[in-house]
């Protein structure tokens, strides 16, 4: 059996065409030359040569039909296309799913790593950051863990060769490295002595930073470098690639923790721990309930109604992306199924054409199992060829996929996403699976046909009727799956459109943002620090082109919020655990003007808000609505737990704006002035006309005029911030849209195939009808009902499927229900229209049949 060259020629049709063209041309030329030599005129010589060939295009078709079975060749594109696409898309998405969700974390015995959070039913937060004193209690009283470590993210200013650079750092308790069981590449990790305040002047560098800034100089270990304005000793270098999920840290510094008063209130730590050998997750959880109960009793002011939750670390860090990724993988899985159905259909058709060959084999004594095996091996070869092409698609696809992810997104995993051995294995199994699905069913089906009968009939069309119903089932499945995918894509698209049309409450155009982190060593003094930012802002405001400037401690749409309890100053103070709480932002004067957010009443912070003057606050509209509905809040006094001993006076009410994410409804927020509650870090906001790149350079220069050692980082436009903040729903919407488009295209090919086939079966009848005067509309009417009936069944099945899957989808959608009627109806119409189109094409072609040809057809 010579199907290997046949398969090869299938894959190389272009080459073959090209060769054949050349060969025929050379033949023509030689004939013309001989004719001329025999005395013909050039014109006659050419005409004679061509006449001997007849129609050269038709002839070429004929010759090629020998190389590949004729109709198969027609469908060859589908074979390659459908399989390669299905396998390629699956490989690309799987490589992402594998790298993020499946692969164990890159630490020894990762299954024993957990993260522990505080939890509060009242605040509806199962994963709340942890209070330092609570952490110390956990460490001392829990029994399930080998060790626990606390982490706090921190920007760090390094001064290297006089050039200030800001790098992302992590403050970690000394157990951090032993919890992860990662040894340093050079030097050592922190000792417990370094967790004592005042003895924490040590720093560990990442391999990458060491390479970039210190040229891999081993002598750096043991040296002192300037960290946040204080000399610190470099004690170690971490191994290449070491990282901790969600923190893009390049330096680690000790986190000194004590049970001092100053730590009593806030919650800001991330806690990671390693389970003792043999301790189960639920045992650890029980243990932590017990410990949390203890802390709640020991310090009810802070901990009443608070508990603790233990999550496996891998599950915890992938929390937000798990469902979207599984949905994407399921979607490409559907796409692969559609491709399989498509190819199975083509194989059935092909098999029908080969019934005679099979009959002969069977007559010559081939057992049924051998024929099945032969057909299956052919399918396997096809799917392996599909796999090869698919890998190419996957490579391209993955590259464009990763390009959709914003550069500075804190990915849950930092290991590279690539097509590696694991992914290749998956791809191989996917190919095997496709071969089984699309190859085995037709093979079994074909081998069951009465081959003797087929042989006797002596016609290639023998015994095809039985497969038509199977093929219809495949097409119905294809269209139904395509519908499910399209509904998903439609919902995502609508949800995304809703999302980006949300009014954020500020205007992101022509707005520049940049981050600064103030050295604690140099600006330890609150007064000095409070004036520092004002000086920087004044310097920036005087820069040409700048219209307004301000600052906030957490930039909107970067998923960062701060919360604090508060209470009305005219009532006795309740304990912090019982006080109401609100978000708070520390801003400079001019923030609202710079953001173009409206002040609804009262005034902005101004010169009167100085460090030692009467503390003031601005609240947002949501705050008034929640806590003082219908009242005038101006002049009211609040005790805000976060900062101040003295109550603050409300001087203004600002319009609501989105803070953590675009989809989050504005929460009650208290704005405090940085002049009165100075922070160590701020995001500067600069509104300017003209080229923002130019403005960014001048603004940075302005900062350096105030302090040449002040590093400026994360310079980006607010439009970029805005766009990055919706990158994940955009990613999902774009991908689902692509998958749905491909699915619909494949389903269309399926419908087209089945209608073409029934048209060819009815060529005789159609010919007679045309001869008797039927017009093309009549013929279309003859063929269309079959396709529409199939589409209708598929529509019902697809809708049922969509409804069944709607629950899995709901949490991914914004302001759109998974049963959104508008989406369902328009997708149904789309699929119906596409099916009808796919059916009309062959039907219309049928009307061009020459009645005489049709009648002679058999």
């Amino acid at each position, binding site marked *: 059996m010579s199907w290997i060259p046949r398969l090869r020629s299938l894959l190389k049709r272009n080459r073959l065409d090209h060769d054949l063209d050349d*060969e025929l041309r050379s033949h023509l*030329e030689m004939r013309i*030359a001989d004719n001329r030599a025999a005395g013909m005129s050039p014109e006659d010589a050419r005409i004679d040569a061509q006449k001997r060939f007849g129609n050269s295009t038709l*002839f070429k078709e*004929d010759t090629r039909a020998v190389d590949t079975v004729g109709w198969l060749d027609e469908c060859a594109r589908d074979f390659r296309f459908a399989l390669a696409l299905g396998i390629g898309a699956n490989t690309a998405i799987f490589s992402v799913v594998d790298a993020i969700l499946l692969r164990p974390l890159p630490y020894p015995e990762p299954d024993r790593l957990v993260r522990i959070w505080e939890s509060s039913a009242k605040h509806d937060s199962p994963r709340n950051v942890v209070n330092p004193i609570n952490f110390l209690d956990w460490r001392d009283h829990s029994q399930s863990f080998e060790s626990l470590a606390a982490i706090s993210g921190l920007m760090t200013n390094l001064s290297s060769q006089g050039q200030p650079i800001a790098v992302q750092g992590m403050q970690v308790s000394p157990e951090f490295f032993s919890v992860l069981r990662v040894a340093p590449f050079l030097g050592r990790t922190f000792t417990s002595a370094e967790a004592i305040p005042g003895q924490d002047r040590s720093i560990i560098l990442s391999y990458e930073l060491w390479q970039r800034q210190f040229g891999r100089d081993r002598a750096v270990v043991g040296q002192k470098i300037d960290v946040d304005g204080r000399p610190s000793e470099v004690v170690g270098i971490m191994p290449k690639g070491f990282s901790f999920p969600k923190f893009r840290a390049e330096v680690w510094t000790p986190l000194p923790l004590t049970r001092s008063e100053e730590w009593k209130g806030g919650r800001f730590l991330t806690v990671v721990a390693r389970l003792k050998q043999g301790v189960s997750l639920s045992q650890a959880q029980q243990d932590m309930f017990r410990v949390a109960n203890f802390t709640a009793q020991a310090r009810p002011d802070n901990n009443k109604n608070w508990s603790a939750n233990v999550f496996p670390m891998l599950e915890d860090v992938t929390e937000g992306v798990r469902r979207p990724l599984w949905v994407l993988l399921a979607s490409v899985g559907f796409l692969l199924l559609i491709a399989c159905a498509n190819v199975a259909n083509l194989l059935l058709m092909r098999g029908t054409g080969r019934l005679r060959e099979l009959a002969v084999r069977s007559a010559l004594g081939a057992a049924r199992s051998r024929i099945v095996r032969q057909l299956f091996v052919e399918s396997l070869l096809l799917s392996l060829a599909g796999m090869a092409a698919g890998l190419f698609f996957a490579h391209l696809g993955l590259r464009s996929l990763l390009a959709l992810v914003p550069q500075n997104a804190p990915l849950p995993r930092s290991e590279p996403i690539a097509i590696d051995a694991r992914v290749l294995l998956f791809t191989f199994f996917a190919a095997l699976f496709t071969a089984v699905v699309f190859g085995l069913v037709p093979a079994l089906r074909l081998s069951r046909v009465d081959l003797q009968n087929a042989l006797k009939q002596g016609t290639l069309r023998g015994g095809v009727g039985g497969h038509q119903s199977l093929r219809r089932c495949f097409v119905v499945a294809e269209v139904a799956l395509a519908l499910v995918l399209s509904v998903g894509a439609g919902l995502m698209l609508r949800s995304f459109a809703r999302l980006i049309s949300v009014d954020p409450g500020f205007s992101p155009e022509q707005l520049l943002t940049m981050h600064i982190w103030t050295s604690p060593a140099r600006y330890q003094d609150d007064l000095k620090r409070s004036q520092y930012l004002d000086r920087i802002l004044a310097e920036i405001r005087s820069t040409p082109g700048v219209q307004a400037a301000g600052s906030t401690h957490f930039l909107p749409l970067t998923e960062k919020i701060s919360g604090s309890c508060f209470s009305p100053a005219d009532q006795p103070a309740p304990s912090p655990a019982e006080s109401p709480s609100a978000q708070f932002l520390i801003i400079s004067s001019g923030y609202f003007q710079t953001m173009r957010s409206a002040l609804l009443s009262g005034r902005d912070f101004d010169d009167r808000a100085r460090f030692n003057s009467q503390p003031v606050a601005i609240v947002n509209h949501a705050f008034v609505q929640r806590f003082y509905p219908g009242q005038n809040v101006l002049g009211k006094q609040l005790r805000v737990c976060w900062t101040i001993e003295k109550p603050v006076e409300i001087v203004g009410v600002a319009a609501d704006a989105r803070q953590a994410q675009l989809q989050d409804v504005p929460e009650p927020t208290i704005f405090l002035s940085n002049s009165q509650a100075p922070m160590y870090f701020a995001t500067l906001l600069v509104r300017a006309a003209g080229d923002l790149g130019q403005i960014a350079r001048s603004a940075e220069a302005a900062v350096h005029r105030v302090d040449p050692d002040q590093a400026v980082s994360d310079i980006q436009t607010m439009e970029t911030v805005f766009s990055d903040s919706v990158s994940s729903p955009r990613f999902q919407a774009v991908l689902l849209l692509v998958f749905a488009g491909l699915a619909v295209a494949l389903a269309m090919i399926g419908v087209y195939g089945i209608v073409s086939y029934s048209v060819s079966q009815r060529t005789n009848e159609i010919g007679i009808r045309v001869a008797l005067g039927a017009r093309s509309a009549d013929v279309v009417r003859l063929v269309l009902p079959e396709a529409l009936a199939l589409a209708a069944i598929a529509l019902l099945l697809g809708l049922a499927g969509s409804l069944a899957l709607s629950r899995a989808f709901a949490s991914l959608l914004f302001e759109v229900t998974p049963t959104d009627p508008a989406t369902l109806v328009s997708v149904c119409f789309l699929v119906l229209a596409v099916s009808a189109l796919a059916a009309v094409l062959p039907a219309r072609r049928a009307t061009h049949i020459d009645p005489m040809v049709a009648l002679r057809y058999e």
Partner: protein
Amino acid sequence: MRKSKNDLLQGTLTLLVLKTLARVPMHGYRITLHIQMVSKDILRVEEGSLYPALHRMEQDGSVSAEWGMSENNRRARYYRMSAKGRKQLAEEEKNWERLTQAVAQVLEFA
């Protein structure tokens, strides 16, 4: 009608082509000329049958093909008979003999 002369029996074309290629590799046009010449113009191979036949034989492995230069310096695709082709030729010749004998017997009998 001239057509009757060309209406070769199914399968005969393969035999003729193989026999033609048995001595020396040739390109398609040369094959048509050769058959026409040797049969003294009685057999005329039509291009429309020749190339499909050649490609089928190439698929089957009875001939192989490669590009070369023709006598008057044109690029042409040369067909060469393979070992398999040689076996097939022997087989086909035997078949042909049996067939012509059978036909002759029938004719004599009638």
